[in-house]
């Protein structure tokens, strides 16, 4: 994706589980696959470490989109963590949608340690989606905005 200077560049927070998706991100780096630099990765021990509050906090601190990446269901390092993530995030995203907050600003994607290409493709696609949505207004905290 070509991004020119004047264009809006969304800030994306990606929570990646240590065992699969973070390694997947690493792999996409060592393979020299491109994904936009505005994706900020936060490493978590397991996708199920992500408290709904983290997602909201990310928006508060200026994120325009939040994506959670974890091992594929069945492959979680802790066996079942991501099954809980799946239910939690489904309900949280549904609630955000119910409050009228753009649902496309949130996403969950399962990325294994071998899927460097999927990681890059997912990020490119997510950045493009959020760029289309524009700045996060509905979950913003003005006090946290850069002047």
């Amino acid at each position, binding site marked *: 994706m070509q991004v020119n200077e004047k264009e809006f560049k969304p800030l994306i927070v990606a929570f990646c589980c240590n065992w699969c998706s973070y390694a997947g991100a690493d792999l996409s780096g060592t393979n020299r696959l491109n994904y936009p630099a505005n994706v900020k990765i936060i490493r978590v021990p397991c996708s199920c470490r992500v408290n*709904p*509050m983290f997602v*909201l906090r990310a*928006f*508060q601190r200026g994120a325009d989109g939040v994506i959670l990446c974890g091992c594929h*269901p*069945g492959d979680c390092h802790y066996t*079942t963590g991501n*099954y*809980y993530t*799946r*239910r*939690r*995030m*489904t*309900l*949280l*995203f*549904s*609630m*955000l*949608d*119910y*409050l*009228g*907050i*753009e*649902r*496309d600003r*949130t*996403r*969950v994607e399962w990325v294994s340690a071998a899927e460097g290409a999927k990681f890059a493709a997912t990020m490119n696609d997510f950045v493009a989606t959020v760029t289309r949505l524009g700045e996060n207004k*509905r*979950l*913003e*905290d*003005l*006090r946290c905005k850069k002047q």
Partner: protein
Amino acid sequence: MQEAMIRRAKELLADGTVNRVLGWQRGEFVYDVTPAVFASPDELDASFVYNDFCGANLSKYLVAESRKEGKVLAFLKPCDTYSLNQLTAEHRVVRENIYAIGLPCEGKADVEALKAAGAAGITGIADGGDTFTVHTLYGDQTVAKADALAERCANCKSKQCVTYDELLGENGAVQNSHRFDMVEQLENMTADERYAFWQGELSRCIRCNACRNACPACTCEKCVFDNPQSGIANTAPADSFEEKLFHIIRAFHVAGRCTDCGECSRVCPQHIPLHLLNRKFIKDINELYGPYQAGADVAARGPLTDFTFEDCEPSVVHERGVN
């Protein structure tokens, strides 16, 4: 009913089954009823009251009361028994220390609705089936229940006491309620309309924390909203983000555990329809993970502490039709 309750409470006090009684205490006005603990027959005679204004859910008080010395007698309405079951399942109460008497319930009155219907100087209330007969300083007035019931009673989910040691009167049945109608209406709005609706509602919140404090599902001793490090501890929301943060997290923390008892909406001084947030979670859980009623069964596993391999992906939310 009040006489029967006092009589039974005195018997249980006398034979030593319980050493105190959790019920409602008379206030300055007839609709001013407060949850209270009575330790003697004299106290019961002096101020125990039970009428159509006794909406408060007494289950939450059992978290503290059931850990004290001796058994406590608690009078519970059907929806309060769901809360007690849920608290028992979560090991928040000592069930052996509670003697629960289940009460039948035909719906409690919302005093503000009665006042809005023109009742002034209210001195008493009587249930007349489909109506309330309100005694006032200016004579009796009849108000249709449709206009005067508390919201949760108008959309009652169940008149069945699900846990009790004894029943006064007949047990009721699970109701065919319309409690999700309003949630559905909201779902059918556009995102912009929903956003405007919730902005209008949530921006009135003064963060009094009454909704949390009254909630029988909110019983953590250390609450995230009391943590001074959280940035949102016990202050009025500074901006629309904080309002949403509080309300999303409050509702999320009770998701799968909320029995839909309606206390939160009842106690909110700002009349914020908190039940519409809770019911959204309940409705989603029912639709995505199968019908579940918190508190109906002590042995049931909560939907958020459970999973199946076939659960839907979070993308179901994105795949829903766009309004």
